[in-house]
């Protein structure tokens, strides 16, 4: 069973390595969106520092949403997905492997590049640390919830726009506690509560999202 999981992850990672531009597009989209905000609101350091967490988090939300369409679409188009549905291994496990690989490809780079962007907005050491921590806990949740939306909209016309409509409202709790944790650190309140809630969301979505995505895939491919 876990051999199948490992195989799926290795396969998706290999595929991503062969198409490096896909990964880079997500990261550069993230960097560009974050850089647009100072241009929009002005370069005052205090203002930028107070909105840094929100800006980075909203951009991470958008970037991870953009990459969702790739999660199942390629496999769906070349027929791999149907083969995966026919395997004796539980579909939820296979879906979990795909989500994990997707997070390593499109979520982890955002976590790694985020401190650099936070630095541009004048965040201090503790806040940068917290930004990385919240993103590390939060971006997997984004991938997990997003997988449900991606599976539901598989092969639909206008699926890309539709998936944002479905998924963004569900991202709101992650945004609130992710950005809130960084802000709480900046204002010296401590962010244990935020981190605990993000962890709780991660556990809950780890439990439910693969099952829901698997059910959605069966509906879409049927």
């Amino acid at each position, binding site marked *: 069973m876990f051999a199948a999981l490992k195989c799926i992850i290795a396969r998706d990672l290999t595929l991503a390595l062969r198409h490096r531009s896909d990964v880079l597009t997500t990261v550069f989209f993230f960097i560009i969106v974050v850089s647009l905000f100072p241009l929009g609101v002005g370069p005052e350091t205090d203002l930028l520092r107070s909105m840094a967490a929100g800006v980075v988090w909203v951009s991470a939300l958008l970037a991870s949403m953009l990459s969702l369409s790739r999660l199942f679409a390629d496999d769906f188009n070349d027929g791999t997905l149907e083969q995966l549905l026919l395997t004796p291994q539980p579909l939820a496990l296979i879906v979990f492997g795909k989500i994990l690989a997707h997070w390593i490809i499109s979520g982890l780079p955002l976590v790694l590049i985020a401190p650099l962007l936070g630095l541009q907005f004048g965040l201090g050491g503790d806040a940068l640390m917290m930004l990385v921590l919240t993103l590390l806990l939060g971006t997997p949740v984004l991938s997990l919830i997003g997988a449900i939306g991606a599976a539901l909209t598989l092969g639909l016309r206008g699926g890309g726009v539709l998936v944002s*409509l479905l998924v963004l*409202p569900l991202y*709101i709790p992650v945004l609130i506690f992710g950005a*809130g944790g960084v802000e709480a650190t900046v204002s010296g309140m401590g962010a244990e509560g935020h981190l605990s809630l993000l962890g709780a969301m991660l556990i809950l979505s780890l439990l439910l999202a693969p099952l829901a995505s698997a059910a959605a895939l069966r509906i*879409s491919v049927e």
Partner: protein
Amino acid sequence: MNLFKYSAPSIFYPLAGRLATGFAIAAVLLLAIGLYMSFFVAPTDYKQGEGYRIMFIHVPAAWMSMFIYLVMAAWAAAGMIWRTRLSSMMASALAPTGAMFTFIALWTGALWGKPMWGAWWVWDARLTSELILLFLYIGYMAMESAIDDPRRAARACGLLALVGVINIPIIYYSVKWWNTLHQGASIKMSESGGIESSMTEIMLWTMLIMTFACWFYTIAVALTRVRSIILERESKTVWVKEMLQQGEK
């Protein structure tokens, strides 16, 4: 009597027609009484003046907006468990009405907020979560219209409604905590504290009648809509063709 026989669209269709008429009449009557009471019978509030009267539509609409989502999810769940066609049709018949009540609640809330708080919109927990609820309804309807195959649409929308209903409490509490963490807004929410503690019996009755009017309206509209959906999806079946032929004669 076996109630489950009504889960067959062909048997439910005439029943829905009779029920819809009954509930529509009841809704119109209650709405007339409720509106008369809310404008002429209910006394002027000593704090908020005449402006508080908007609550007689605002509060029932807000209740309905949340309750309809739950009912919709329950129908969706029933549709997934028993694979009955009618259940998913009921779920999709309820969605537009739910979205409408959500919009009414937001709109009347803005109209009430301007004179009371001095702002059309504040990022209060209740307002924000109501707005997110509207997004959920819109997402549901958008997905339904994006899928051409009605069976796939029904099942996909059912799953989406269930995912949404699990998320609603999470969203509600995160927005609430978010709001208490940002004690920025100077406006204090005292919608319930201000009125309901001082609410007279007549106000309570008016509100109750308006709530039931909204209820009956929802039932009547949903049943009428489900009749159209039944005809649309079953248009290839014998009973629909027979019924249409009899109607033409």
